[in-house]
C-alpha cells in the first residue's frame, strides 16, 4: 500500500487546482461576452428584446447551477454527440456567468444619470454611439468592483462541475479522500486552497469599492 504524506496530498490538490483556475478563467471570459450581449438586449429600445433578456436572466438566476450542469451534460448528448464533461461544464458555466454579469452590469448602466442619455440623444447619437461614448465609460467605472466580486462566485461555482465528472479541485479531493481515508485533512486543505484563490479577489473587490466611493465621503 502506498503511504500518502500531507505533502503528497497537497501536491496533488495543487495540480488539480490548475483546472479550477483554467475553467474559472474560461467561464469568466465566455460569460463576459454573453453578459455583454444580454446587457445590450436588456437595455435596448425594443420591448421584446428586453423581455427576452429578462427571461434569460430570470431563468438562470432562479434555477440551481447544478441543474443547469446536468441539463447541459445530458441535453447536449441528445444531439447525438459525445459530450466530454469539460464541454458541458464550460457551456453551463458560461451561460450562468453571463446571466449574472448581465444583471450586475445593468445595475451599473442604470446608475448613470438619465440626463446623460437625454443629452447624448439630443446630440443625435444613436443607441450604439450613446453606449460606446457616453454610458459605458461611466458605467464601467462603477462595474469593476462588483464584477471582481462576482468572479469569486464563478470560482466557487466551478466546484459543482466535479459532480458531472470534471476533474478539478473538488473532484480531486474526493478521489484523494477515497485513496487516503483522511477526509478531514484533505477537505480542510481543499477549503484552504479555494480560500487562497478567492480571498484576494474578495479583498480587491472591497478595496476597489472603497476607492470608488471615496469621493462621496467628505
Amino acid at each position, binding site marked *: 500500500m502506498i503511504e500518502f504524506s500531507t505533502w503528497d496530498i497537497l501536491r496533488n490538490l495543487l495540480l488539480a487546482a490548475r483546472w479550477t483556475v483554467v475553467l474559472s478563467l474560461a467561464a469568466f471570459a465566455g460569460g463576459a461576452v454573453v453578459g455583454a450581449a444580454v446587457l445590450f438586449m436588456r437595455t435596448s429600445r425594443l420591448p421584446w428584446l428586453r423581455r427576452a433578456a429578462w427571461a434569460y436572466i430570470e431563468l438562470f438566476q432562479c434555477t440551481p447551477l447544478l441543474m443547469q450542469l*446536468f441539463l447541459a451534460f445530458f441535453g447536449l448528448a441528445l444531439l447525438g454527440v459525445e459530450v466530454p464533461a469539460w464541454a458541458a461544464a464550460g457551456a453551463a458555466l458560461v451561460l450562468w456567468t453571463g446571466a449574472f454579469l448581465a444583471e450586475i452590469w445593468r445595475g451599473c448602466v442604470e446608475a448613470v444619470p438619465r440626463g446623460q442619455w437625454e443629452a447624448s440623444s439630443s446630440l443625435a447619437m444613436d443607441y450604439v454611439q450613446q453606449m460606446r461614448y457616453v454610458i459605458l465609460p461611466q458605467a464601467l467605472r462603477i462595474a469593476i468592483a462588483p464584477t471582481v466580486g462576482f468572479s469569486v462566485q464563478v470560482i466557487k461555482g466551478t466546484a459543482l462541475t466535479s459532480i458531472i465528472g470534471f476533474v478539478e479541485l473538488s473532484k480531486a479531493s474526493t478521489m484523494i479522500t477515497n485513496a487516503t481515508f483522511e477526509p478531514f485533512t*484533505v*477537505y480542510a486543505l481543499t477549503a484552504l486552497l*479555494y480560500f487562497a484563490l478567492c480571498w484576494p479577489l474578495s479583498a480587491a473587490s472591497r478595496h476597489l469599492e472603497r476607492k470608488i466611493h471615496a469621493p462621496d465621503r467628505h
Partner: protein
Amino acid sequence: MAYEFDFAAVFDYTPVLVRGVWVTVELIAFGATMGMAVGIGCAWARTQGPRWLRPPVVAYIELIRNTPFLVQLFFIFFGLPSLGLKLSEMQAACLAMAVNLGAYSAEIVRAGVQATPLGQFEAGASLAMTPLQVFRHVVLRPALQRIWPALSSQIVIVMLGSAVCSQIAAQELTFAANFIQSRNFRAFEVYFVATAVYLLLAVLLRQLLRWLGHWLFARAR
C-alpha cells in the same frame, strides 16, 4: 436519429418528486431560520460585540464566503467524523446551510446596522438602555427592514444551493431526480422537470419572503 421525449416516464415517479420537494422545503426552512439567527448574532458581534470576539467572527465569515458550499458540506459530513462528530446526512445538510447562510447574512445585516444613524444609539443610551437593549429594541428592526431585499435574495440563492446536498445523500429534490434518472434512464426529462420545480420554488419563496417582509415591518412604518 431523432430523440423522442418521454415526460410521462418522469410523472410515473411523482410521489418521489413530491417527497424530494418536501425535504428541500424542510432544509430551506431550517437553514433560513438558523442562518438568519447566526447572521444577526455575528452582525452584533462584529459591530457592538466585545473586542476579543471580532477576529474569530471575521475569520468565520471570510472563510465561509470564500469557499464553495460543496466543500463545506463535504468537510462537515466526511471530515468532522474523524473529530468524533458524526452527523446524519440531513443533520449535516441543515448544519451546512445554516453555517453558509449565517456568514452571508452576517455581512448583509451588518450593512443594515451600520447604516443606523448615530443619534438612534445615543437616544437609546440616554433612555438608560444597555447596549444590548439598544441593539435589540432600537437598531435591529429598522436594520432588517433596510436589508430585507438583499437578505431575501440570499435566502433564495441558498435554497438553490441546497441542490448540492444530494451529494451527501440528503434525499431532497435533486436526490429524487438522480434516483428517478437511475431507474428510467430519462436523464434530460427528469432534470428538466426538476429544474422547472426549482424555478417554481424560487419564485414562490421570493413571494413568500416579500409577504413576510410586509408583515414583519408593517408596524415599523
